[in-house]
């Protein structure tokens, strides 16, 4: 797609995008610590999703880049230059907010043109450019409407156009989709990704929705209690989580009690011995000594067979469309989640005894956690 806003130079993301770097960011609000030494580097033209539970500091990190918050310690670098003391309106960032943030007294096109007006771009030029941007987000016919005449999805599109109007060095998205309904959310997030790639603009996307993060980001940075747990491409994050927290926060993970082998390279679980795939940091001693450990498994990796002599029992089933998610209670009392194809689920009704098997593949191991209650739904 060719577009007046995407000139030849901006087509090569690596040449135009800026870098953003967090160095040891600390920020506390009273007794609450929002950021506790955050370090993160974002490459030019990259879309990085900041993912984490609420209160993990992801929005604070974003607001520090925008200039709406000051860190207590640490610095933010854009293109290698420290911007920590630069006021918000000179930061050269574009931002889309979680709540609808269009100026109620201005039409859609005037909203988009607002930044250009503040930068002293002439009336005709800025209207033309704003109209072009509205076209880019698919709303050319809504230019004359006021925000209250637009749907939530349309408002966020206009807000996106407004954020892009000044060709910012960094685009900041603060949960821009969380107020929208499911269908609009899906289409708009794909559109954000398309635009971001076309414009090659470095983007930080804050979300608490892991599916959203995994589906559009180049890399996902998982945060917890003001620190970075892991920053990796979505596939790697899912397959090789660096910490037990990441493993259980991203996707669904069940814990099955096992016993680490004497050499530390194997673990015996569910009656068989499997190689250990990775040792989670902080869990080293757990895997290093012959002791009680938990084996972390994804539901799609668990196999369930109806077996009259089995020691496990199916306690619930949730229909998910193509698959059915079974909750299986093991002999030891812990629950394991298993995804089975919908057509085989008919042979596994709730209440029957069954055998749970793991494939012959290396598994993730974490230190045994007290009060094991199985997977996170």
């Amino acid at each position: 797609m060719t577009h007046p806003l995407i000139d030849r130079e901006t087509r090569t993301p690596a040449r135009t995008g800026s870098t953003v770097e967090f160095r040891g960011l600390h920020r506390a609000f009273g007794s609450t610590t929002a950021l506790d030494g955050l370090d993160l580097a974002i490459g030019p033209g990259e879309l990085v999703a900041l993912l984490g539970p609420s209160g993990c500091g992801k929005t604070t990190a974003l607001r520090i880049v925008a200039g709406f918050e000051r860190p207590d310690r640490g610095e933010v670098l854009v293109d290698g230059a420290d911007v920590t003391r630069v006021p918000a309106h000179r930061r050269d960032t574009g931002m889309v907010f979680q709540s609808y943030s269009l100026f109620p007294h201005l039409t859609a096109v005037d909203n988009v043109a607002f930044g250009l007006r503040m930068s002293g771009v002439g009336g005709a030029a800025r209207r033309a450019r704003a109209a072009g941007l509205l076209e880019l987000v698919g709303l050319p016919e809504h230019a004359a409407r006021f925000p209250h005449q637009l749907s939530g999805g349309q408002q966020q599109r206009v807000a996106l156009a407004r954020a892009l109007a000044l060709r910012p060095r960094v685009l900041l998205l603060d949960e821009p989709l969380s107020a929208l309904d499911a269908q609009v959310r899906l289409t708009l997030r794909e559109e954000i990704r398309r635009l971001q790639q076309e414009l090659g603009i470095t983007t930080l996307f804050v979300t608490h929705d892991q599916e959203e993060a995994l589906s559009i980001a180049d890399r996902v940075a998982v945060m917890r209690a003001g620190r970075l747990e892991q920053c990796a491409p979505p596939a790697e994050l899912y397959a090789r989580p660096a910490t037990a927290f990441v493993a259980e926060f991203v996707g669904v993970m069940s814990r099955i009690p096992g016993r680490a082998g004497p050499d530390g390279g194997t673990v015996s679980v569910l009656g068989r011995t499997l190689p250990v795939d990775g040792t989670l940091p902080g869990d080293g001693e757990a895997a290093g000594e012959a002791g009680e450990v938990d084996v972390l498994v994804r539901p799609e990796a668990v196999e369930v067979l109806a077996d009259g002599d089995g020691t496990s029992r199916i306690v619930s089933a949730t229909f998910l469309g193509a698959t059915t998610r079974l909750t299986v209670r093991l002999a030891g009392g812990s629950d394991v989640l298993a995804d089975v194809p919908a057509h085989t689920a008919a042979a596994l009704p709730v209440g029957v005894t069954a055998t749970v098997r793991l494939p012959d593949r290396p598994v993730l191991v974490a230190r045994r956690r007290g009060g094991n209650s199985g997977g996170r739904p």
Partner: protein
Amino acid sequence: MARLSGARYGRAAVWLAAGAYFLVPLACAVAFSVEDPRKGVDFEAYTGMFGADGFTGSLVLTVKVGAATVALVLVLLLPALITVRLTAPRLRTLVELVCLLPLVVPAMALVAGISAVLRWGPDHFAGTPLFDAFVGLQNPDFPGVLVLAYTLMALPLAYRTLDAGLAAIDLRVLVEAARACRASWPRTLVHVVLPNLRGALLNTAFLTLALVFGEYTVAAILGYQPFAVWIVVISGSQAQMSVAASMIGLLVTWVLLLVLAATGRARRTKETS
């Protein structure tokens, strides 16, 4: 059905009673102002008012003091309320308390305090620049002391309307959105905050003006003659004209109110078209 029409009669009775309560005194006042024992009806009180002694002077004084009061109230209160909302929400109760305080201070007490200060100040500061300030405050062409007193008295009204206006918009998000669009603080205020507070600003201005136009106690005791004081002063010699002037004042206030309501409505219809 019977109950429905019963409710209708009840409503009509309330309307009638309320209407009579407001309109009968007004009608009597109008009747009094145009009554002439010899000719029957005479509008001389209205036509002669504009040429009457002191009419123009008192009106101009009131308008000047009113405009200055509106300006001072907004300049004082708006930045304070915005700052409190954005940076120190905990101070809101304190600001509210301070702004509502004048409600419990009677105008008499206020003016007694002001006169005491005005008497004491010049003696105490004789020979210093503050002496000139005290004299300047009491300049009969533009009594700054009235502006200060009216600003105090208008604070509770202005606080309520402005605070309601600020509560109706998502101030923080609008300000941050404007800042992200490269608007400096002053431009954020002028181009984003003020346009979205238009209704509240108009309301504040109107209420403040209404207060200044009707205030008697402070002005009279301090010895100035704005419109309200002039009406009372002439009532001794020209009772009919005094009532006529009150009627005109009332009419102007109503017209202002209607204009205010109409601007709000016109804006809304424009947006939905």
